[in-house]
């Protein structure tokens, strides 16, 4: 199962038969394992890893530190889930340290993201403060280096 998860993280586009070839299993076995991963919530989805900077209309992304007042029932969970539901929010994590939630927000431009923070996020009951950090450049995303290419320098035949 771990081998399957590792492979999906690297190349989610493979067909089940291609996965079966790589993992030395039958296609039926792979289908069953994948079904299990999807139903138990291990695999949340499959997506392409995009370097936004290469798109014609580059969206804007920001990391927002959010401080919250914990609630008597459920601590931060209720607030966090509420925030995570906004479509602008691509990632949302509870953090240790100087703030509570790390929220990554994506929008078509700077103003759009700023508006979301000032009008939606910071006005929520329980949000004490926010600090917005705009992303300037991508070097690595989801385990992939931006525009990384390396020539094979090996000699063609070696012992």
């Amino acid at each position, binding site marked *: 199962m771990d*081998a399957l998860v*590792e*492979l999906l993280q690297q190349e989610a586009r493979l067909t089940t038969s291609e996965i079966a*070839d*790589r*993992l*030395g*299993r039958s296609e039926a076995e792979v289908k069953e394992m994948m079904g299990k991963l999807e139903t138990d919530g291990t695999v949340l989805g499959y997506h392409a890893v995009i370097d936004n900077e290469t798109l014609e209309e580059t969206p804007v992304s920001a990391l927002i530190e959010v401080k919250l007042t914990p609630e008597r029932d459920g601590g931060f969970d209720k607030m966090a889930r509420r925030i995570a539901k906004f479509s602008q929010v691509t990632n949302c994590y509870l953090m240790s340290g100087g703030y509570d939630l790390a929220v990554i927000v994506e929008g078509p431009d700077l103003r759009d993201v700023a508006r979301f923070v000032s009008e939606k996020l910071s006005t929520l009951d329980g949000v004490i403060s926010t600090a917005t950090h705009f992303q300037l450049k991508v070097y690595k995303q989801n385990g992939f280096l931006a525009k990384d290419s*390396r020539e*094979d320098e*090996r*000699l*063609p*035949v*070696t*012992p």
Partner: protein
Amino acid sequence: MKPLEDRIADQVKQIPRSGIRDFFELVQGRDDVISLGVGEPDFSAPWHIREAAIYSLEKGHTSYTSNLGLLSLRESISRYVTGQFGVTYDPANEVLVTVGVSEALDLVCRALLNPGDEVIYHEPCYVSYSPSIALAYGVAVPVETRVEDEFVLKAEDVAAKITDRTRVILLNFPTNPTGAVEPVEELQKIADLAIEHDLIVVSDEIYCELLYDEETGMELGEHVSIASLPGMKERTILLHGFSKAFAMTGFRLGYACAPQILTEAMMKIHQYSMLCAPIMSQNAAIEALENGAEEVERMRRAYARRRNLVLKRFREMGIPCFSPGGAFYAFPDIRKFGLSSKDFAFRLLEEEDVAVVPGDAFGMAGEGCVRACYATSYEQLEIAMDRIEAFVSRLES
């Protein structure tokens, strides 16, 4: 003046031209070749190891080290070897850091052999074994291993070659070029022979981290070193290095672990020929041993996936290919096409631009097979296998 050819020592003259060399020149002249002819990983050394080498330079570590190698590296090696092989060597005097296993093998031969002493080793094998023995004035005594036995070395075949001049048995499991792994029972019988005839065993275990379980290949297979068998540590020289598992071929770093007297003998030669291994590589190697296990396993799983592809495709093409338990080579049996290994490899290169190494480059016992290295990206392998399929279906029609 005498012709320069006459100035070359007999020992060197008698070494035949490498079959790999010929093939290399042929391949190099062509574009668009997918090469399954390499003997090294396609990965770069993991970044944390490269970074450690950079840091070592930044700190100005550019001097000689102890002849044996940095003590801190020998301590790391000792711990790693204990974990990996279950045998413990004293870092103070039982570990020698060398410039690759190749140097270690040369040292072993020169340290142990008197003219005419015989070394038994199994073929097909790595190309340097026979020349290294010959250059040390020893006599190379190959034992054939067979595709029918999945290239397992039979103790009875070893026994048949033992004479009163035999001094050393040289083993390499997992094997380059076949990927073969020696079953423990057979290894034990070879150990018994070594003890019975009072022979030294030299065990080149450079591929020992790259093992694949029998079921899917995705799990790590079990490795047993002959050094760990009862009564064997005192008569075994264990050779290992960083090239394959850590993808550090260009760092040129290996090591020999052996009882103190043997280590000292090898060190005597090493100190005058090499002085020490490069310090930058040694510092990188400490990082590799201390923090590299996860990356090694990640690369092993990548090889395992490619191995699955290559084995499946060869079988679908009707080319017999046993499941190699280790390394990153497949060694398919191409006899049914009625071509020699060389002709098969040359025509595959000419007609489909895929390079594999003819099996006879690794000794006559490799004739009838070719070595296909699967340490190449999955996408390239898929294209290569398509091309091989096109080639063999033409041969069959």
